[in-house]
């Protein structure tokens, strides 16, 4: 299990290698990498800055992973989220889930991202030609989290 909030970039291959190293019980690893885009809501985005709530962030991410583990049998999870200033094309978030079979790995990976989008205290501020602006939460993200059912 690895849950990290960091400024530095990460490398998917290295994370997946670390997950597999020295074990032969893993049958599937599903991964997701979220990237900073150069365009959002009709404006060019030159850079974005990710702010978070130190302390709560780590707790919220651990809770997401714990919830995923209660729903599926998982062999390992790596979750890395970056903070600070990022440029278009930079990786923002990585989720990698190892399981015996692909079903639980795919499902848990998507579940963790859907829950992260609505529960982990991160906020994005974009630099656009019109000035700086805070990204607004999307109703579609709430809908994506809702389809997994209520947990609280």
């Amino acid at each position, binding site marked *: 299990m690895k849950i990290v909030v960091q400024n530095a970039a990460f490398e998917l291959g290295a994370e997946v290698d670390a997950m597999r190293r020295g074990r032969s019980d893993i049958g599937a690893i599903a991964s997701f990498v979220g990237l900073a885009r150069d365009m959002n809501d009709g404006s060019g985005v030159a850079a974005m800055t990710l702010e978070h709530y130190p302390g709560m962030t780590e707790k919220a991410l651990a809770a997401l992973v714990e919830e995923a583990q209660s729903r599926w049998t998982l062999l390992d999870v790596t979750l890395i989220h970056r903070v600070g200033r990022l440029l278009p094309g930079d990786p923002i978030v990585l989720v990698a889930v190892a399981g015996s079979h692909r079903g639980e790995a795919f499902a848990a990976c998507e579940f963790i991202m859907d829950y992260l989008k609505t529960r982990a205290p991160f906020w994005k501020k974009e630099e656009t030609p019109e000035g700086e602006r805070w990204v607004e*939460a999307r109703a579609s993200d709430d809908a994506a989290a809702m389809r997994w059912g209520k947990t609280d």
Partner: protein
Amino acid sequence: MKLRVLYFARLRERLGCAEETLDCAGSTVADLVAQLQARGGVWAEELAADRAYRVAVNQDIVALDAALSENAEVAIFPPVTGG
């Protein structure tokens, strides 16, 4: 009761406050929000009932009717946009 209140992201900027310690006369999150709204101006505007914001008590997101406790860490912030 004494509370430590934190504000994040757009709310921190709009309210011009990242953190404060205050004495709350009530016992729930709703009481605290009402006390902050009573400051008027941008506080009344940003914390109005029709505005979207979240409240965490001791780092867990809670509903407005949640109870507060002495020296709790309360955070008020916009809906999250990470990932």
